[in-house]
């Protein structure tokens, strides 16, 4: 009788703790997803300001800073696009992931993809303050991605 009661309480405790872990993972992922948006938005804004002096060059004439050009901007944004697309998809998947459910495989795949895509963004930017700021933002974005992965690995034990 005592053993059955103790085992029952232990089972309740394990289920309780595992439920909190899933919740914590989602909460962490959502918080970091919001940070990731800010970082990528900042990267894009700085690049566009370098091209035309505005946060978005949509409909504005090019006035590139020294060492930058329309072609370089296009190439840079072609590398940045998969990162932003992965971030957008991650947000959609997080919306479908309900608290208490296991980590969806798509979320883990997207997070891994974000890390890979970010490493391709680092290139071809002119030297100077903007480049240093961009590199700083990319490093921050990579750190965020690693933080998500770290929390996932810690909680799921993979």
């Amino acid at each position, binding site marked *: 009788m*005592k053993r059955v*009661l103790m085992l029952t*309480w232990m089972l*309740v405790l394990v289920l*309780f703790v595992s439920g*909190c872990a899933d*919740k914590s993972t*989602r*909460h962490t992922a*959502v*918080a970091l*997803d*919001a940070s990731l*948006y800010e970082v*990528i*938005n900042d990267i*894009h804004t700085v*690049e*566009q300001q370098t091209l035309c002096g505005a946060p*978005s*060059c*949509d409909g504005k004439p090019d006035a590139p800073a020294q060492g930058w050009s329309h072609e370089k*901007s*296009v190439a840079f*944004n*072609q590398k*940045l*696009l998969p990162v*932003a*697309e992965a*971030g*957008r998809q991650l*947000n*959609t998947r*997080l*919306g479908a992931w309900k*608290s208490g459910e296991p980590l969806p495989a798509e979320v883990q795949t997207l997070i891994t993809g974000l890390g890979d895509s970010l490493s391709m963004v680092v290139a071809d930017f002119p030297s100077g303050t903007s480049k240093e700021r961009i590199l700083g933002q990319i490093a921050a974005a990579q750190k965020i991605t690693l933080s998500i992965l770290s929390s996932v690995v810690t909680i799921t034990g993979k």
Partner: protein
Amino acid sequence: MDPNTLILWEGLITMAAAMGVKSYNVIKAMLQDAGADDATITALQPKWDTLTNDIRRASM
């Protein structure tokens, strides 16, 4: 009922009461957090859409 069984039951009832209060508070906090998370995700979606579209435009 022998004294040991009585102590066990007292312990279990105390534990159940403590867990009940803790569970209520944790579940309440979880529901509040879940609401905040969902609101954050909803607010971020149009921002991600706009950002992705602008980067796509800039990449062409």
